[in-house]
């Protein structure tokens, strides 16, 4: 059963991608229908995997020699992320039918979306490191292709290539890890090292652990690779919701969570993971505070929230991290789709030109506010529970310094969230925009997400069962019901983050009276607007590479004599070496 389902989850979207492409751009309606049908079918197949979660290898295709066996496992972690990918994928596709209506080359768009959904499912379902790397790169390729979907816009093309290059640079870490696993265990299956049977030398394990950390940081847009995600916002909004909020960026967190049992004892690894998480969360939150582009604010907040997840893993609570991933996928997809609806309707992403949109789009306003409350960590919404669990875990598993920074970031989160909501939906219109109506498909896609953002935390008991010993070996996560959650979250220490969050909101309410304080932090604002220099480092690397390429090109003089002198020079170098050796 699982065998067929896994094949369906990966195969259906890929087949769909092919068929949509074949349908041709002249039959746009048909393409919309096909894309929705295939993504929904994949989502259904993924949900049907849920009752059959097991740690057993389901498919094993021998590929021979250095390629290992192509294996797939439907364990708890995999199935959970598969469902996120396919279900949110379906919603994004439904949303697109109205958002992308009438765009050119819609076939290419859907083909890549479906290709991505299949690849993302494959990435989490496989247990072969080669396949994992393969799917990892395919998701990067799809992300690139969709960011630069509008090929005529140089900004979109640049953003896409930047995302591809940075995530591929990180991919080198994963590649190296996969190679080393194969070399030292003779197998490409990750259970070879997770099982603890293979004794890797300590230094190799360290290379592996930090290699994977680099890969994860690049994929999840963490420090110091965070710069690609804001630029990826040139993508159509459903893509931002699906790839750059709910699924692909989670692959890094998934990688860390998957290998946590072997890496946790590597010296300094957990410390490094926590530092990466804390720095990303803090810097991104500050940048979100000063940005005026709605989608960029959401992108920064994604980086920040992913920072929380990474921090949780470093602190030793894989469960809290995955639970926040669950909540975040829902509320961030909701926020991006709602933002997409706003942008589609208003025609700009600049918040300084919006204002008062709420009056014209009340439905969008309310679902956006639901998402915003969840993001800010206001009680009862799903973000509150998972964020509190992470903070509790951080208090137990890491230094108090990191904990206080993360609590501070929680306050900042509340501040920038309310700022965004205010600038978009309230006040008077600040420019002469004309708000279109929001399509029905958009509303249909938003509704389940809004509902889930309110109630998804109730499923914590069911959720924790996915991570039990039978469905997820090596991790030893105990069942964790609502009772335990109440017990853990409703504690005295919860009051501190809640107080800070309230303080954050109050800061916005009394913003006019805090002018002096704002001025005092102008230098910080300047730093944040320049992305703390990381953009500069990126540009520097690109410029240096291009300059060296350009100077190397001058060696191709095209003059025959110089070409031959190079030949003679090579001979001389050889002979000198031999003469010294002899």
């Amino acid at each position, binding site marked *: 059963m699982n065998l067929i389902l896994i094949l369906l989850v990966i195969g259906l979207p890929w087949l769909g991608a092919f068929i949509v492409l074949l349908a041709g751009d002249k039959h746009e309606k048909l393409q919309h229908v096909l894309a929705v049908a295939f993504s929904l079918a994949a989502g259904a197949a993924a949900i049907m995997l849920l009752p059959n979660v097991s740690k057993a290898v389901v498919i094993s295709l021998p590929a*021979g020699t*250095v390629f290992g066996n192509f294996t797939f496992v439907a364990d708890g972690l995999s199935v959970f992320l598969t469902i996120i990918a396919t279900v949110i994928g379906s919603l994004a596709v439904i949303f697109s039918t109205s958002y992308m209506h009438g765009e050119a080359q819609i076939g290419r768009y859907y083909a890549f979306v479906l290709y991505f959904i299949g690849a993302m499912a494959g990435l989490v379902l496989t247990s072969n490191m080669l396949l994992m790397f393969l799917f990892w790169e395919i998701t990067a390729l799809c992300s690139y292709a969709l960011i630069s979907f509008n090929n005529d816009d140089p900004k979109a093309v640049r953003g896409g290539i930047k995302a591809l290059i940075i995530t591929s640079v990180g991919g*080198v870490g994963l590649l190296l890890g996969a190679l*080393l696993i194969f070399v030292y265990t003779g197998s490409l299956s990750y259970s070879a090292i997770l099982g603890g049977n293979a004794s890797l030398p300590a230094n190799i394990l360290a290379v592996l652990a930090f290699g994977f950390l680099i890969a994860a940081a690049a994929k999840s847009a963490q420090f110091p690779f965070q710069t690609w995600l804001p630029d990826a916002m040139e993508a159509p909004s459903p893509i931002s919701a699906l790839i750059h909020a709910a699924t692909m960026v989670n692959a890094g967190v998934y990688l860390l969570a998957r290998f946590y049992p072997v890496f946790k004892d590597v010296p300094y690894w957990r410390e490094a993971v926590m530092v990466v998480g804390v720095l990303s969360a803090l810097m991104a939150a500050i940048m979100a505070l000063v940005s005026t582009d709605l989608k960029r604010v959401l992108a920064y907040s994604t980086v920040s929230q992913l920072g929380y997840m990474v921090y949780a893993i470093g602190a030793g609570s894989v469960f809290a991290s995955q639970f926040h991933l669950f909540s975040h996928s829902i509320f961030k997809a909701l926020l991006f789709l709602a933002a997409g609806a706003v942008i589609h309707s208003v025609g700009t992403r600049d918040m300084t030109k919006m204002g008062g949109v709420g009056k014209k789009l009340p439905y969008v306003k309310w679902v956006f506010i639901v998402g915003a409350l969840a993001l800010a960590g206001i009680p009862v919404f799903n973000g509150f529970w998972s964020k509190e669990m992470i903070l509790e875990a951080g208090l137990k598993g890491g230094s108090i310094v990191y904990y206080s920074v993360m609590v501070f970031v929680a306050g900042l989160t509340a501040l920038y969230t309310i700022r965004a909501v205010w600038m978009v939906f309230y006040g008077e219109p600040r420019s002469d925009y004309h708000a279109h109506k929001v399509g029905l498909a958009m509303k249909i896609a938003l509704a389940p997400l809004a509902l889930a953002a309110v109630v998804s935390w109730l499923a914590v008991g069911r959720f924790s069962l996915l991570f039990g010993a039978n469905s997820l070996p090596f991790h030893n996560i105990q069942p964790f019901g609502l009772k335990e959650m109440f017990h853990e979250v409703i504690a005295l220490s919860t009051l501190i983050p809640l107080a800070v969050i309230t303080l954050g909101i109050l800061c916005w309410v009394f913003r006019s009276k805090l002018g002096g304080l704002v001025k005092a932090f102008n230098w910080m604002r300047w730093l944040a607007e320049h992305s703390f220099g990381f953009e500069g480092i990126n540009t520097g690397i690109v410029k240096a590479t*291009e300059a060296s390429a350009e100077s190397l090109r001058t060696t191709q003089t*095209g003059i025959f004599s110089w070409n*031959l002198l190079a030949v003679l020079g090579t001979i001389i170098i*050889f002979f000198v070496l*031999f003469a010294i050796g002899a």
Partner: protein
Amino acid sequence: MNSVLITLGLIALPLVAAPIIYLFGRTSVRKQRLLGMTLAKLLTLLVLVLEGLLIYLGVQVWVAGGSVATNIGTIQVGLDGIGLIVGTIAVGLGFCVVIFSIPYMENENGEEKYYALLLTLIGSIVGLACSMDLFNLWVWFELMAISSYFLVAFYNEQPASLESGFKYLTQSAVGSALVLFGIAILFSTTGSVAMWSVWSNATSGTPIVYAAAALIIVGFGIKAALVPLHTWLPDAHSQAPSGISAMLSGIVIEAGLVAMLRTLSVLAQTHFPSGIILLVFGCVNILAGNLLALRQVEVKRMLAYSSIAQVGYMLVGFGVAILSSSYVAAAGGFFHMLTHAMMKGLAFLAAGAFLYVLHIGKGEHTALVLDDLNGAAKKYPVVAFLLSLALLGLGGLPPLAGFMSKWQILVATAGVNSTLMICIVIFVALNSVLSLAYYVPVINRLYRLNISETAAAGRSISWIMVLPMVILAVGIVVIGVWPSLANFLTFNAAASLMYPFGV
């Protein structure tokens, strides 16, 4: 069919058929009739099919436990693992190129010479891979060079084409003189040119034997485009007719590499540090090739520079193989040779198709620049898709063939238990990422909405041109999804290469 006949047929068939093809073609040029030319094309295809059949029969003899080798006089020739893979690539790619050339070269002045020389070129590569005698190897190598000179300078009314032809000719000739020098030294010191007796006689590495090895590396290295001996390559690849560019990049430079490896394996007992030398050249090639391609605006020239980088991957594979006696690395090197032939062949054919419909078909000989490709997917969706596929494969994105061969090379490299090798893995992988920076923008251009004026005014593409590209593309995808299909070819070749090294 016995093995002697197979061997003789394999090396003699193309060379015997080439003059006949020329004569057929010539009659139609004289009498202005098309029949002869058509016959010539069909005969070329037929010979290639027969060659494929002979290779297949040879493999059958092999599998049954026999060896496909024979002595012609004192010269031993035979189909071993290296011969098998190089022969397969040459014949297979040659077949695709011939089909592609039917519309591409139609009514060009000298069409009949083109097919005759193309067949000679393919035959010489097969012969080179089958030769077991150092001097005979050089003769095949020279035949390969001589038959390709005119093919490179085919458009002899174009100054640029003549220029590239002249540089190619002189630098090749210098290379082959250097190789000969090396062979002469080995002959003087060991008293033989038969590979196995040189192998058994050359047991101590006197400085002059090392010098001979260096000359041979540099000499063959000119053909194999080792940096800094590569300078002829971008000119020749960009100016030759596109089918020939595909041949040059897909197999001719690799034939130089194979000849070099054969010769180095003969010197296995002298402790000549060939492994480390190949590794160093490999790394330099990868970096220089990528950087040179990065800012290039001519499509074929960019592909030519990327060939330099791709040869670097093979060199890394072979270097690791020799350095650490690793089968997997050698097989990876050969695997990359195979996948590169398919990917670069496809890329050059697709670029050639664009060049043809946008420029050459109209009688213009301007270079195809990136701007010409803007929005080309709108008008030529199939070719644009195939070109994107080839470029993504070259950039090492899965699940295409190029990723699998690079993976195999990297697995073997990481398998050598040393920090240096881990650094090389990281270096190679980062360079793969760097190469995306020039492959991917091309794809972006293809899918733009605003079509360039040149592309909008292009002619339609004949299906005969598309057919060989589809064949290659299917190969790329199939090998990418099921990489162990190529194991028979690659591991036998690795066994033949590593045997003299005592592995």
